Protein backbone atom coordinates (compact mmCIF):
# COMPACT_ATOMS: atom_id res chain seq x y z
CA UNK A 1 0.00 0.00 0.00
CA UNK A 2 1.44 3.30 -1.02
CA UNK A 3 0.51 6.81 -0.16
CA UNK A 4 -0.42 8.87 -3.13
CA UNK A 5 0.22 12.20 -1.51
CA UNK A 6 3.78 12.92 -1.09
CA UNK A 7 5.77 15.79 0.07
CA UNK A 8 8.66 16.77 -2.05
CA UNK A 9 11.88 17.61 -0.35
CA UNK A 10 15.39 16.66 -1.26
CA UNK A 11 17.02 16.34 2.13
CA UNK A 12 14.22 16.22 4.70
CA UNK A 13 13.46 12.47 4.48
CA UNK A 14 17.13 11.68 5.04
CA UNK A 15 17.26 14.01 8.01
CA UNK A 16 14.17 12.34 9.47
CA UNK A 17 15.62 8.88 9.03
CA UNK A 18 19.07 9.81 10.21
CA UNK A 19 18.72 9.21 13.97
CA UNK A 20 17.15 5.79 13.59
CA UNK A 21 19.52 4.69 10.86
CA UNK A 22 22.51 5.89 12.81
CA UNK A 23 21.55 3.98 15.93
CA UNK A 24 20.57 0.94 13.91
CA UNK A 25 23.85 0.91 12.07
CA UNK A 26 25.95 1.47 15.17
CA UNK A 27 24.18 -0.75 17.64
CA UNK A 28 22.52 -3.38 15.47
CA UNK A 29 24.08 -3.85 12.08
CA UNK A 30 27.67 -3.31 13.08
CA UNK A 31 27.58 -5.54 16.20
CA UNK A 32 25.73 -8.25 14.32
CA UNK A 33 28.29 -8.24 11.55
CA UNK A 34 31.05 -8.16 14.15
CA UNK A 35 29.57 -11.25 15.78
CA UNK A 36 29.73 -12.90 12.39
CA UNK A 37 33.35 -11.85 11.91
CA UNK A 38 34.40 -12.80 15.42
CA UNK A 39 32.88 -16.22 15.05
CA UNK A 40 35.53 -16.98 12.45
CA UNK A 41 38.39 -15.94 14.72
CA UNK A 42 39.83 -17.48 17.83
CA UNK A 43 40.65 -14.76 20.33
CA UNK A 44 42.66 -15.25 23.46
CA UNK A 45 40.88 -14.37 26.72
CA UNK A 46 42.63 -11.00 27.01
CA UNK A 47 41.68 -9.95 23.52
CA UNK A 48 45.33 -9.42 22.62
CA UNK A 49 45.52 -11.62 19.61
CA UNK A 50 43.17 -13.33 17.29
CA UNK A 51 43.60 -15.51 14.26
CA UNK A 52 41.33 -16.71 11.54
CA UNK A 53 40.03 -20.19 12.16
CA UNK A 54 37.19 -20.46 9.67
CA UNK A 55 34.37 -22.65 10.82
CA UNK A 56 36.45 -24.13 13.64
CA UNK A 57 34.39 -22.44 16.34
CA UNK A 58 31.21 -23.81 14.84
CA UNK A 59 32.49 -27.36 14.49
CA UNK A 60 33.87 -27.20 18.01
CA UNK A 61 30.53 -25.91 19.26
CA UNK A 62 28.50 -28.52 17.47
CA UNK A 63 30.70 -31.25 18.91
CA UNK A 64 30.60 -29.80 22.42
CA UNK A 65 28.43 -31.82 24.84
CA UNK A 66 27.94 -28.66 26.91
CA UNK A 67 26.40 -26.98 23.90
CA UNK A 68 24.22 -29.99 23.23
CA UNK A 69 23.15 -29.79 26.82
CA UNK A 70 22.22 -26.10 26.43
CA UNK A 71 20.25 -26.82 23.27
CA UNK A 72 18.34 -29.57 25.00
CA UNK A 73 17.67 -27.42 28.09
CA UNK A 74 16.46 -24.60 25.88
CA UNK A 75 14.04 -26.86 24.07
CA UNK A 76 12.66 -28.28 27.29
CA UNK A 77 12.47 -24.85 28.89
CA UNK A 78 10.85 -23.26 25.87
CA UNK A 79 8.35 -26.03 25.36
CA UNK A 80 7.08 -26.03 28.91
CA UNK A 81 7.18 -22.27 29.42
CA UNK A 82 5.30 -21.64 26.20
CA UNK A 83 2.70 -24.37 26.73
CA UNK A 84 2.06 -23.38 30.31
CA UNK A 85 1.77 -19.68 29.57
CA UNK A 86 -0.45 -20.25 26.53
CA UNK A 87 -2.73 -22.76 28.21
CA UNK A 88 -3.22 -20.59 31.28
CA UNK A 89 -3.76 -17.46 29.19
CA UNK A 90 -6.30 -19.18 26.95
CA UNK A 91 -8.14 -20.72 29.88
CA UNK A 92 -8.51 -17.41 31.66
CA UNK A 93 -9.44 -15.58 28.45
CA UNK A 94 -12.19 -18.06 27.59
CA UNK A 95 -13.78 -17.57 30.98
CA UNK A 96 -13.25 -13.83 31.06
CA UNK A 97 -14.89 -13.63 27.63
CA UNK A 98 -18.04 -15.19 29.08
CA UNK A 99 -18.34 -12.64 31.83
CA UNK A 100 -20.70 -9.83 31.01
CA UNK A 101 -20.30 -7.60 34.01
CA UNK A 102 -16.91 -7.21 35.69
CA UNK A 103 -14.80 -8.11 32.70
CA UNK A 104 -12.63 -5.04 33.10
CA UNK A 105 -12.05 -5.83 36.75
CA UNK A 106 -10.83 -9.31 35.91
CA UNK A 107 -8.65 -7.93 33.18
CA UNK A 108 -7.08 -5.46 35.56
CA UNK A 109 -6.46 -8.18 38.11
CA UNK A 110 -4.87 -10.46 35.53
CA UNK A 111 -2.90 -7.99 33.49
CA UNK A 112 -0.39 -6.63 35.92
CA UNK A 113 2.21 -9.46 35.96
CA UNK A 114 3.09 -8.29 32.46
CA UNK A 115 4.71 -5.29 34.09
CA UNK A 116 6.88 -7.35 36.43
CA UNK A 117 10.50 -7.69 35.29
CA UNK A 118 11.52 -11.28 34.56
CA UNK A 119 14.31 -10.98 37.10
CA UNK A 120 11.90 -9.78 39.77
CA UNK A 121 9.45 -12.54 38.85
CA UNK A 122 12.33 -14.94 39.38
CA UNK A 123 13.01 -13.51 42.82
CA UNK A 124 9.34 -13.80 43.85
CA UNK A 125 9.10 -17.40 42.76
CA UNK A 126 12.45 -18.33 44.24
CA UNK A 127 11.07 -17.24 47.57
CA UNK A 128 7.89 -19.26 47.08
CA UNK A 129 9.89 -22.32 46.07
CA UNK A 130 12.72 -21.75 48.53
CA UNK A 131 13.65 -25.13 50.04
CA UNK A 132 13.69 -23.74 53.58
CA UNK A 133 11.25 -20.84 53.63
CA UNK A 134 9.04 -21.23 50.60
CA UNK A 135 5.33 -21.86 51.04
CA UNK A 136 5.07 -23.95 47.90
CA UNK A 137 8.21 -25.89 48.74
CA UNK A 138 6.55 -26.83 51.98
CA UNK A 139 3.50 -28.14 50.17
CA UNK A 140 5.65 -30.09 47.74
CA UNK A 141 7.74 -31.60 50.50
CA UNK A 142 4.57 -32.87 52.11
CA UNK A 143 3.98 -35.01 49.03
CA UNK A 144 7.23 -36.74 49.82
CA UNK A 145 9.43 -35.06 47.21
CA UNK A 146 12.72 -33.85 48.59
CA UNK A 147 12.27 -30.46 47.00
CA UNK A 148 15.41 -28.42 46.53
CA UNK A 149 15.78 -26.25 43.42
CA UNK A 150 19.14 -25.02 44.66
CA UNK A 151 20.65 -28.47 44.32
CA UNK A 152 18.35 -30.48 42.07
CA UNK A 153 18.50 -29.63 38.37
CA UNK A 154 14.96 -30.73 37.53
CA UNK A 155 13.60 -28.74 40.43
CA UNK A 156 15.56 -25.69 39.34
CA UNK A 157 14.23 -26.07 35.82
CA UNK A 158 10.68 -26.32 37.16
CA UNK A 159 11.22 -23.15 39.15
CA UNK A 160 12.47 -21.06 36.21
CA UNK A 161 9.73 -22.44 33.95
CA UNK A 162 6.98 -21.52 36.38
CA UNK A 163 8.42 -18.06 37.04
CA UNK A 164 8.87 -17.37 33.32
CA UNK A 165 5.45 -18.67 32.37
CA UNK A 166 3.73 -16.76 35.18
CA UNK A 167 4.96 -13.46 33.85
CA UNK A 168 3.85 -14.27 30.30
CA UNK A 169 0.29 -15.40 31.13
CA UNK A 170 -1.02 -11.81 31.17
CA UNK A 171 0.31 -11.10 27.72
CA UNK A 172 -1.32 -14.20 26.26
CA UNK A 173 -4.50 -13.47 28.16
CA UNK A 174 -4.80 -10.00 26.63
CA UNK A 175 -4.37 -11.34 23.10
CA UNK A 176 -6.65 -14.31 23.49
CA UNK A 177 -9.32 -12.12 25.00
CA UNK A 178 -9.03 -9.63 22.13
CA UNK A 179 -9.15 -12.54 19.69
CA UNK A 180 -12.23 -13.99 21.33
CA UNK A 181 -14.00 -10.68 21.39
CA UNK A 182 -13.36 -10.27 17.69
CA UNK A 183 -15.33 -13.43 16.93
CA UNK A 184 -18.82 -12.40 15.87
CA UNK A 185 -21.43 -13.40 18.42
CA UNK A 186 -23.75 -14.44 15.60
CA UNK A 187 -21.41 -17.27 14.64
CA UNK A 188 -21.48 -18.76 18.10
CA UNK A 189 -25.19 -18.20 18.41
CA UNK A 190 -25.76 -19.93 15.09
CA UNK A 191 -23.82 -22.93 16.35
CA UNK A 192 -25.79 -22.89 19.58
CA UNK A 193 -29.03 -22.93 17.60
CA UNK A 194 -27.64 -25.85 15.61
CA UNK A 195 -27.42 -27.59 18.95
CA UNK A 196 -23.66 -27.75 19.45
CA UNK A 197 -22.56 -28.12 23.05
CA UNK A 198 -20.39 -25.50 24.70
CA UNK A 199 -17.37 -27.75 24.48
CA UNK A 200 -18.00 -28.62 20.85
CA UNK A 201 -18.63 -24.99 20.02
CA UNK A 202 -15.28 -24.09 21.41
CA UNK A 203 -13.30 -26.69 19.50
CA UNK A 204 -15.11 -26.48 16.19
CA UNK A 205 -15.77 -22.75 15.93
CA UNK A 206 -13.93 -20.63 18.44
CA UNK A 207 -10.60 -22.39 18.40
CA UNK A 208 -10.11 -22.40 14.62
CA UNK A 209 -10.99 -18.72 14.48
CA UNK A 210 -8.49 -18.12 17.22
CA UNK A 211 -5.68 -19.95 15.46
CA UNK A 212 -4.05 -16.86 13.92
CA UNK A 213 -3.80 -15.36 17.40
CA UNK A 214 -2.48 -18.64 18.71
CA UNK A 215 0.14 -18.82 16.03
CA UNK A 216 1.26 -15.27 16.64
CA UNK A 217 1.47 -15.95 20.36
CA UNK A 218 3.48 -19.12 19.87
CA UNK A 219 6.13 -17.19 18.01
CA UNK A 220 6.12 -14.41 20.59
CA UNK A 221 6.32 -16.86 23.48
CA UNK A 222 9.12 -18.82 21.88
CA UNK A 223 11.12 -15.63 21.35
CA UNK A 224 10.34 -14.62 24.93
CA UNK A 225 11.51 -17.97 26.28
CA UNK A 226 14.65 -17.85 24.21
CA UNK A 227 15.78 -14.37 25.13
CA UNK A 228 13.87 -12.36 27.65
CA UNK A 229 13.98 -15.03 30.32
CA UNK A 230 17.67 -14.32 30.76
CA UNK A 231 16.77 -12.22 33.77
CA UNK A 232 14.97 -15.11 35.46
CA UNK A 233 17.87 -17.48 34.96
CA UNK A 234 20.55 -15.00 35.93
CA UNK A 235 18.75 -13.81 39.03
CA UNK A 236 17.63 -17.23 40.25
CA UNK A 237 19.94 -20.03 39.18
CA UNK A 238 22.88 -18.58 37.27
CA UNK A 239 22.39 -21.46 34.89
CA UNK A 240 22.86 -24.01 37.63
CA UNK A 241 22.85 -26.26 39.40
CA UNK A 242 25.42 -28.00 37.24
CA UNK A 243 24.30 -26.36 34.02
CA UNK A 244 20.75 -27.67 34.47
CA UNK A 245 19.19 -24.30 33.58
CA UNK A 246 21.82 -23.05 31.18
CA UNK A 247 19.75 -22.12 28.16
CA UNK A 248 21.37 -20.85 24.97
CA UNK A 249 21.13 -17.15 25.68
CA UNK A 250 22.60 -17.66 29.13
CA UNK A 251 25.46 -19.61 27.62
CA UNK A 252 26.23 -16.80 25.17
CA UNK A 253 26.51 -14.50 28.14
CA UNK A 254 28.44 -16.92 30.33
CA UNK A 255 30.94 -17.86 27.64
CA UNK A 256 31.39 -14.31 26.43
CA UNK A 257 31.50 -12.39 29.68
CA UNK A 258 32.39 -14.91 32.31
CA UNK A 259 34.47 -17.39 30.32
CA UNK A 260 35.79 -14.68 27.98
CA UNK A 261 35.66 -17.09 25.08
CA UNK A 262 34.73 -14.45 22.52
CA UNK A 263 34.98 -16.68 19.47
CA UNK A 264 32.63 -19.28 20.85
CA UNK A 265 30.23 -16.68 22.20
CA UNK A 266 30.17 -15.00 18.80
CA UNK A 267 29.50 -18.28 17.02
CA UNK A 268 26.64 -18.93 19.43
CA UNK A 269 25.30 -15.45 18.80
CA UNK A 270 25.33 -16.09 15.09
CA UNK A 271 23.42 -19.35 15.52
CA UNK A 272 20.85 -17.58 17.69
CA UNK A 273 20.54 -14.80 15.14
CA UNK A 274 19.92 -17.33 12.40
CA UNK A 275 17.22 -18.79 14.59
CA UNK A 276 15.47 -15.48 15.20
CA UNK A 277 15.70 -14.58 11.54
CA UNK A 278 14.18 -17.94 10.67
CA UNK A 279 11.37 -17.43 13.15
CA UNK A 280 10.66 -13.92 11.92
CA UNK A 281 10.59 -15.00 8.28
CA UNK A 282 8.34 -17.88 9.16
CA UNK A 283 5.98 -15.57 10.95
CA UNK A 284 5.98 -13.15 8.04
CA UNK A 285 5.26 -15.83 5.50
CA UNK A 286 2.42 -17.00 7.64
CA UNK A 287 1.02 -13.53 8.20
CA UNK A 288 1.16 -12.86 4.49
CA UNK A 289 -0.81 -15.97 3.81
CA UNK A 290 -3.32 -15.04 6.41
CA UNK A 291 -3.80 -11.66 4.80
CA UNK A 292 -4.47 -13.36 1.49
CA UNK A 293 -7.04 -15.65 3.01
CA UNK A 294 -8.99 -12.79 4.44
Amino acid at each position, binding site marked *: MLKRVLFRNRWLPYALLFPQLLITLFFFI*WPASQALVQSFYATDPFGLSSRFVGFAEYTRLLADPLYHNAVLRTLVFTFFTTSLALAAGLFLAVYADRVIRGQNTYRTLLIWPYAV*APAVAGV*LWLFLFHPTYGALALVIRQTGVNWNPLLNGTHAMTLVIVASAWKQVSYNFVFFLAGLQAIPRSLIEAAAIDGASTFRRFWTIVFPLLSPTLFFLIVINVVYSF*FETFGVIHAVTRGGPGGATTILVYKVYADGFVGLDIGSSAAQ*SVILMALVIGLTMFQFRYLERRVQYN
Partner: protein
Amino acid sequence: MVDRSRTLRITTHVLLVLGVLVIGFPIYYAFVAATLPLELATRVPMPLVPGDHLMDNVEQAWRRGDLGLQLFNSIVMALGITAGKIAISIISAFAIVYFRFPGRMLAFWIIFVTLMLPVEVRIVPTYEMAVNVFTPVNRLLEVLSVPVAIDPLGYTISMRLQWNILDSYFGLTLPLIASATATFLFRQFFLTIPDQLAEAAKIDGAGPLRFFWDVLLPMSRTNIAALAVILFVYGWNQYLWPLLITTDREMMTAVIGITRLMPSPDDAPEWNVAMAGALIVLIPPVIVVVLLQRWFVKGLVEEEK
Protein backbone atom coordinates in the same frame (compact mmCIF):
# COMPACT_ATOMS: atom_id res chain seq x y z
CA MET B 1 -32.63 -22.89 31.16
CA VAL B 2 -32.37 -20.02 33.61
CA ASP B 3 -30.95 -22.41 36.16
CA ARG B 4 -28.35 -23.72 33.79
CA SER B 5 -27.11 -20.30 32.75
CA ARG B 6 -26.94 -19.25 36.35
CA THR B 7 -24.79 -22.22 37.34
CA LEU B 8 -22.62 -21.46 34.34
CA ARG B 9 -22.25 -17.89 35.42
CA ILE B 10 -21.29 -18.83 38.92
CA THR B 11 -18.78 -21.44 37.75
CA THR B 12 -17.25 -18.84 35.45
CA HIS B 13 -16.79 -16.38 38.25
CA VAL B 14 -15.45 -19.01 40.62
CA LEU B 15 -12.87 -20.14 38.09
CA LEU B 16 -11.84 -16.58 37.30
CA VAL B 17 -11.49 -15.69 40.96
CA LEU B 18 -9.36 -18.78 41.42
CA GLY B 19 -7.23 -17.70 38.46
CA VAL B 20 -6.82 -14.24 39.90
CA LEU B 21 -5.79 -15.73 43.24
CA VAL B 22 -3.24 -18.09 41.70
CA ILE B 23 -1.78 -15.34 39.54
CA GLY B 24 -1.74 -12.94 42.47
CA PHE B 25 -0.42 -15.31 45.08
CA PRO B 26 3.33 -14.67 44.55
CA ILE B 27 2.75 -10.98 45.07
CA TYR B 28 0.57 -11.48 48.10
CA TYR B 29 3.10 -13.83 49.60
CA ALA B 30 5.88 -11.34 48.93
CA PHE B 31 3.76 -8.59 50.43
CA VAL B 32 3.11 -10.57 53.60
CA ALA B 33 6.80 -11.38 53.95
CA ALA B 34 7.61 -7.72 53.49
CA THR B 35 5.39 -6.84 56.44
CA LEU B 36 6.89 -9.34 58.85
CA PRO B 37 9.87 -9.11 61.13
CA LEU B 38 12.73 -11.52 60.39
CA GLU B 39 11.64 -14.15 63.01
CA LEU B 40 8.17 -14.43 61.52
CA ALA B 41 9.29 -14.23 57.89
CA THR B 42 11.63 -17.17 58.39
CA ARG B 43 9.20 -19.24 60.40
CA VAL B 44 8.06 -22.39 58.66
CA PRO B 45 5.33 -22.12 57.61
CA MET B 46 5.33 -18.39 57.32
CA PRO B 47 2.10 -16.72 58.52
CA LEU B 48 -0.23 -15.65 55.70
CA VAL B 49 -1.53 -12.59 57.51
CA PRO B 50 0.35 -9.31 57.07
CA GLY B 51 2.30 -7.98 60.02
CA ASP B 52 3.25 -4.44 60.95
CA HIS B 53 6.89 -4.27 59.90
CA LEU B 54 6.33 -3.06 56.38
CA MET B 55 7.88 0.34 56.91
CA ASP B 56 10.91 -1.11 58.67
CA ASN B 57 11.58 -3.54 55.87
CA VAL B 58 11.00 -0.96 53.18
CA GLU B 59 13.41 1.35 54.88
CA GLN B 60 16.00 -1.39 55.22
CA ALA B 61 15.66 -2.34 51.59
CA TRP B 62 15.77 1.27 50.52
CA ARG B 63 18.94 1.96 52.44
CA ARG B 64 20.80 -1.26 51.79
CA GLY B 65 19.89 -1.47 48.16
CA ASP B 66 20.46 2.24 47.63
CA LEU B 67 17.07 2.15 45.96
CA GLY B 68 16.65 5.92 45.78
CA LEU B 69 19.49 6.21 43.34
CA GLN B 70 18.68 3.01 41.50
CA LEU B 71 15.03 3.90 41.04
CA PHE B 72 16.14 7.22 39.67
CA ASN B 73 18.44 5.45 37.23
CA SER B 74 15.63 3.13 36.22
CA ILE B 75 13.31 6.04 35.63
CA VAL B 76 15.87 7.82 33.51
CA MET B 77 16.52 4.67 31.53
CA ALA B 78 12.84 3.79 31.06
CA LEU B 79 11.84 7.33 30.12
CA GLY B 80 14.89 7.76 27.92
CA ILE B 81 14.12 4.60 26.00
CA THR B 82 10.43 5.48 25.76
CA ALA B 83 10.94 9.03 24.56
CA GLY B 84 13.87 8.14 22.32
CA LYS B 85 12.19 5.24 20.62
CA ILE B 86 8.96 7.09 20.03
CA ALA B 87 10.74 10.16 18.71
CA ILE B 88 13.03 8.45 16.26
CA SER B 89 10.42 5.93 15.17
CA ILE B 90 7.69 8.42 14.44
CA ILE B 91 9.90 10.63 12.33
CA SER B 92 11.41 7.75 10.41
CA ALA B 93 7.93 6.32 9.77
CA PHE B 94 6.89 9.76 8.55
CA ALA B 95 9.82 9.82 6.13
CA ILE B 96 9.09 6.35 4.81
CA VAL B 97 5.36 6.88 4.34
CA TYR B 98 5.17 10.44 3.09
CA PHE B 99 8.24 10.77 0.91
CA ARG B 100 9.68 8.99 -2.09
CA PHE B 101 13.44 9.24 -2.30
CA PRO B 102 16.37 7.20 -3.50
CA GLY B 103 17.33 4.64 -0.88
CA ARG B 104 13.89 4.49 0.67
CA MET B 105 13.57 0.72 0.45
CA LEU B 106 17.12 0.24 1.69
CA ALA B 107 16.37 2.35 4.76
CA PHE B 108 13.20 0.38 5.27
CA TRP B 109 15.09 -2.92 5.25
CA ILE B 110 17.86 -1.68 7.50
CA ILE B 111 15.25 -0.78 10.06
CA PHE B 112 13.36 -3.98 9.44
CA VAL B 113 16.28 -6.29 10.25
CA THR B 114 16.53 -4.85 13.75
CA LEU B 115 13.37 -6.81 14.39
CA MET B 116 15.52 -9.90 14.14
CA LEU B 117 18.44 -8.77 16.26
CA PRO B 118 17.45 -8.56 19.92
CA VAL B 119 20.20 -7.28 22.17
CA GLU B 120 20.66 -10.74 23.61
CA VAL B 121 22.07 -12.20 20.41
CA ARG B 122 24.71 -9.56 19.93
CA ILE B 123 25.88 -8.83 23.43
CA VAL B 124 29.64 -9.08 23.03
CA PRO B 125 30.05 -6.85 19.98
CA THR B 126 27.43 -4.43 21.26
CA TYR B 127 29.37 -4.22 24.48
CA GLU B 128 32.48 -3.46 22.46
CA MET B 129 30.53 -0.68 20.81
CA ALA B 130 29.66 0.72 24.21
CA VAL B 131 33.34 0.72 25.12
CA ASN B 132 33.92 2.94 22.14
CA VAL B 133 30.97 4.07 20.10
CA PHE B 134 33.30 5.23 17.34
CA THR B 135 34.71 1.76 16.71
CA PRO B 136 33.13 1.51 13.25
CA VAL B 137 34.31 4.99 12.39
CA ASN B 138 37.83 4.15 13.46
CA ARG B 139 37.72 0.95 11.48
CA LEU B 140 36.59 2.90 8.48
CA LEU B 141 39.41 5.41 8.95
CA GLU B 142 41.88 2.55 9.25
CA VAL B 143 40.64 0.93 6.11
CA LEU B 144 40.79 4.18 4.26
CA SER B 145 44.07 4.79 6.12
CA VAL B 146 43.45 8.45 6.35
CA PRO B 147 46.57 10.12 7.53
CA VAL B 148 45.33 13.03 9.51
CA ALA B 149 48.70 14.65 9.71
CA ILE B 150 52.11 13.52 8.68
CA ASP B 151 54.86 14.84 10.87
CA PRO B 152 58.22 15.82 9.38
CA LEU B 153 59.94 12.64 10.51
CA GLY B 154 57.65 10.58 8.35
CA TYR B 155 55.54 8.95 11.01
CA THR B 156 51.90 8.66 10.18
CA ILE B 157 49.70 9.86 12.95
CA SER B 158 46.32 8.32 12.59
CA MET B 159 43.21 9.62 14.26
CA ARG B 160 41.19 7.56 16.66
CA LEU B 161 37.89 8.73 18.00
CA GLN B 162 36.86 7.59 21.43
CA TRP B 163 33.50 7.74 23.18
CA ASN B 164 32.94 5.33 26.00
CA ILE B 165 29.34 5.02 27.14
CA LEU B 166 29.78 2.34 29.80
CA ASP B 167 28.31 3.38 33.12
CA SER B 168 26.39 6.26 31.58
CA TYR B 169 22.80 7.09 30.78
CA PHE B 170 23.71 7.14 27.11
CA GLY B 171 24.96 3.59 27.46
CA LEU B 172 21.78 2.50 29.18
CA THR B 173 19.49 3.97 26.56
CA LEU B 174 21.08 4.50 23.13
CA PRO B 175 21.63 0.86 22.13
CA LEU B 176 18.04 0.01 23.01
CA ILE B 177 16.45 2.98 21.28
CA ALA B 178 16.25 1.76 17.69
CA SER B 179 13.09 -0.24 17.21
CA ALA B 180 11.54 -1.66 14.13
CA THR B 181 8.35 -2.44 16.03
CA ALA B 182 7.56 1.15 16.89
CA THR B 183 8.44 2.31 13.39
CA PHE B 184 6.13 -0.28 11.88
CA LEU B 185 3.35 0.62 14.25
CA PHE B 186 3.50 4.24 13.20
CA ARG B 187 3.85 3.28 9.56
CA GLN B 188 0.72 1.15 9.76
CA PHE B 189 -1.12 3.98 11.42
CA PHE B 190 -0.01 6.59 8.90
CA LEU B 191 -1.12 4.36 6.07
CA THR B 192 -4.65 4.36 7.46
CA ILE B 193 -4.82 8.16 7.43
CA PRO B 194 -6.66 9.26 4.27
CA ASP B 195 -4.49 10.89 1.61
CA GLN B 196 -6.93 13.75 1.38
CA LEU B 197 -5.93 14.98 4.81
CA ALA B 198 -2.39 15.64 3.68
CA GLU B 199 -3.70 17.13 0.45
CA ALA B 200 -6.00 19.45 2.35
CA ALA B 201 -3.06 20.49 4.50
CA LYS B 202 -0.94 21.10 1.42
CA ILE B 203 -3.63 23.31 -0.07
CA ASP B 204 -4.00 25.07 3.26
CA GLY B 205 -0.34 25.89 2.88
CA ALA B 206 1.30 23.43 5.27
CA GLY B 207 4.71 22.06 4.41
CA PRO B 208 5.79 18.58 5.49
CA LEU B 209 7.06 19.54 8.93
CA ARG B 210 4.05 21.69 9.63
CA PHE B 211 1.74 18.86 8.56
CA PHE B 212 3.66 16.47 10.80
CA TRP B 213 3.49 18.78 13.76
CA ASP B 214 -0.05 20.14 13.37
CA VAL B 215 -1.87 17.11 12.02
CA LEU B 216 0.02 13.84 12.19
CA LEU B 217 1.39 14.18 15.70
CA PRO B 218 -1.90 15.17 17.36
CA MET B 219 -3.66 12.40 15.48
CA SER B 220 -1.11 9.87 16.75
CA ARG B 221 -1.75 10.73 20.38
CA THR B 222 -3.44 7.47 21.31
CA ASN B 223 -0.85 5.41 19.49
CA ILE B 224 1.90 7.30 21.22
CA ALA B 225 0.27 6.77 24.61
CA ALA B 226 -0.15 3.06 23.98
CA LEU B 227 3.40 2.68 22.83
CA ALA B 228 4.69 4.73 25.74
CA VAL B 229 3.18 2.31 28.24
CA ILE B 230 4.72 -0.69 26.53
CA LEU B 231 8.10 0.94 26.10
CA PHE B 232 8.20 2.20 29.65
CA VAL B 233 7.69 -1.32 30.93
CA TYR B 234 10.23 -2.61 28.42
CA GLY B 235 12.80 -0.05 29.50
CA TRP B 236 12.21 -0.50 33.20
CA ASN B 237 12.51 -4.26 33.01
CA GLN B 238 15.74 -4.38 31.02
CA TYR B 239 18.18 -6.74 32.68
CA LEU B 240 20.93 -8.11 30.49
CA TRP B 241 22.11 -4.84 29.00
CA PRO B 242 22.35 -2.81 32.20
CA LEU B 243 23.97 -5.85 33.82
CA LEU B 244 26.71 -5.74 31.21
CA ILE B 245 27.47 -2.09 31.00
CA THR B 246 27.07 -0.85 34.56
CA THR B 247 29.75 -1.72 37.03
CA ASP B 248 29.52 1.52 38.94
CA ARG B 249 26.97 1.21 41.75
CA GLU B 250 25.95 4.78 41.01
CA MET B 251 24.65 3.75 37.58
CA MET B 252 22.97 0.50 38.52
CA THR B 253 19.27 0.13 37.77
CA ALA B 254 16.73 -1.04 40.30
CA VAL B 255 15.91 -4.36 38.67
CA ILE B 256 19.56 -5.38 38.79
CA GLY B 257 20.08 -3.90 42.21
CA ILE B 258 17.18 -5.75 43.74
CA THR B 259 18.59 -9.16 42.91
CA ARG B 260 21.55 -8.24 45.14
CA LEU B 261 19.22 -7.94 48.10
CA MET B 262 18.45 -11.63 47.88
CA PRO B 263 20.03 -13.36 50.82
CA SER B 264 22.83 -15.73 49.86
CA PRO B 265 23.12 -18.97 51.80
CA ASP B 266 25.75 -17.47 54.10
CA ASP B 267 23.82 -14.36 55.09
CA ALA B 268 20.94 -13.97 57.45
CA PRO B 269 17.87 -15.08 55.45
CA GLU B 270 16.36 -11.63 55.27
CA TRP B 271 13.70 -12.45 52.74
CA ASN B 272 11.41 -9.89 54.30
CA VAL B 273 13.79 -7.12 53.23
CA ALA B 274 14.34 -8.68 49.82
CA MET B 275 10.59 -8.90 49.24
CA ALA B 276 10.07 -5.31 50.37
CA GLY B 277 12.69 -4.31 47.82
CA ALA B 278 11.11 -6.44 45.11
CA LEU B 279 7.74 -4.79 45.72
CA ILE B 280 9.23 -1.32 45.48
CA VAL B 281 10.84 -2.17 42.18
CA LEU B 282 7.83 -3.79 40.58
CA ILE B 283 5.31 -1.18 41.65
CA PRO B 284 6.11 1.65 39.20
CA PRO B 285 5.61 -0.32 35.96
CA VAL B 286 2.62 -2.15 37.42
CA ILE B 287 0.98 1.16 38.25
CA VAL B 288 1.66 2.44 34.76
CA VAL B 289 0.13 -0.65 33.18
CA VAL B 290 -2.92 -0.78 35.41
CA LEU B 291 -3.70 2.92 35.22
CA LEU B 292 -3.14 3.20 31.50
CA GLN B 293 -4.65 -0.20 30.85
CA ARG B 294 -6.95 0.90 28.08
CA TRP B 295 -4.11 2.30 25.99
CA PHE B 296 -1.78 -0.45 26.90
CA VAL B 297 -4.13 -3.16 25.68
CA LYS B 298 -4.78 -1.24 22.50
CA GLY B 299 -1.06 -0.83 21.94
CA LEU B 300 -0.33 -4.50 22.48
CA VAL B 301 -3.06 -5.75 20.23
CA GLU B 302 -2.10 -3.37 17.44
CA GLU B 303 1.44 -4.67 17.50
CA GLU B 304 0.17 -7.93 16.12
CA LYS B 305 -0.98 -6.31 12.91
